[in-house]
């Protein structure tokens, strides 16, 4: 498994039977590939699908929230943007998985702008992290040697204090009232490696090997 696959497969374990889930673009999209078929998870796409299915090469007017040709599962529904964001903002989404440029020990997230360099816009990300019951951030632990898991985000925020769980190729961390807790470490790394690669302060108590990863 490459790093992205490690992150996606670990996050898939967080999804529970019956969950309504919104996956962001990039690594989060891969999470769907690791949900076993007998676990009934419904994916929502904010452009207006309840019951998003896999991508397709066939001619279709159905696209996912990244504009890619997609399918709808049997029993699914097409909805308009206001109803879609009623799901998202009204607390009806159980889990959202989103990428980020930075995340910090207070659960604040930066994902939509690098001032002066890149301004793609927030799309639905601000609504998702504010409205979903559980927010999982999927990201590489470092960028060019610099930690992306920080004491405090340096880039403009997507939202403050909204991340619940952070999953990287190295570790699983949970945002607690008391701080950022290191829960699991990938078998390729040691706790020391994670501490070195993390700018945030970590609460280290009972760390176990990353779940779902074959050694």
């Amino acid at each position, binding site marked *: 498994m490459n790093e992205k696959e490690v992150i996606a497969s670990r996050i898939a374990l967080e999804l529970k039977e019956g969950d309504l889930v919104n996956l962001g673009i990039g690594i989060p999209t891969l999470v769907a590939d690791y949900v076993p078929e007998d676990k009934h998870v419904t994916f929502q*796409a*904010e*452009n*207006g*699908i309840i019951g998003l299915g896999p991508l397709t090469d066939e001619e*279709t*007017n*159905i*696209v996912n*929230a*990244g*504009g890619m040709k997609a399918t*709808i599962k049997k029993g699914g529904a*097409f*909805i*308009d*943007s*206001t109803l*879609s*964001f009623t799901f*998202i*903002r009204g607390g009806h989404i159980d889990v959202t998985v989103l990428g980020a440029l930075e995340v910090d020990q207070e659960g604040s997230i930066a994902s939509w*702008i690098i001032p002066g360099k*890149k*301004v*793609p*816009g*927030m*799309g*639905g*990300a*601000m*609504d998702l992290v*504010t*409205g979903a019951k559980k927010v999982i951030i999927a990201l590489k632990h470092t960028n060019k040697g610099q930690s992306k898991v920080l004491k405090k985000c340096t880039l*403009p*925020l*997507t*939202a*403050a204090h909204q991340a619940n769980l952070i999953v990287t190729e190295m570790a699983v961390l949970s945002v607690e009232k008391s701080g950022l807790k290191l829960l699991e470490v990938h078998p390729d790394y040691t706790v020391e490696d994670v501490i070195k690669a993390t700018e945030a302060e970590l609460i280290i108590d009972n760390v176990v090997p990353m779940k779902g990863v074959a050694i």
Partner: protein
Amino acid sequence: MRGFIKKKDFKDILKDGISIMVGGFLTNGTPETLIDYVVESKVKNLTIICNDGGYEDKGVGKLIVNNQVRKLIASHIGTNPYVGQLMQEGKIEVELVPQGTLAERIRAFGAGLGGILTPTGLDTIVESNKQVLEVNGKKYLLEEPLGADLALLGGAVVANNGNLKYKETMRNFNPVMATAAEIVVVEPFIRVEEIDPEDVITPYPFVDYILVGDDNE
């Protein structure tokens, strides 16, 4: 519904400086023919309200590339690099709005509401210059209603009397935009005789004009 409209009559509606809402999500459900006519008309200083900036050769991106847009109100512009370039040159004003807030601001205008209260955007750049109100101990941003002079809808299954439903994911922003503009013009994706009343998404009173073929313009 006021009636069917051809290319020439549609172009007569267009004026410099008007605001136009355009349905679609990354151009899925965007009325491309109507946009082509706006490009041909060469009207300038437009305010465009759309989920995103489209692509350079598709959707509202075509208007931006043709330098007809003074201001873009959207949630995402990452798929159209030309928008970023114009922003840096100071040639376009871009108001980035969280997607749910964009939908709700449009809904508020269409529903006659004075605005909406939402926690989305609190403690971020989106909060700048906006009122923060507290209701039952929770903080919210006051977001103002958003309407337009003209709405251009696509992806629609159009009945002869102007009732609409929408094909698959092309629904997105189209139904809410139908409620929030002075004049609403629909580019049919499919024409049908009628739509079962239980299936109508946008009832005909919201629709002003339906584009029909420009056989003799």
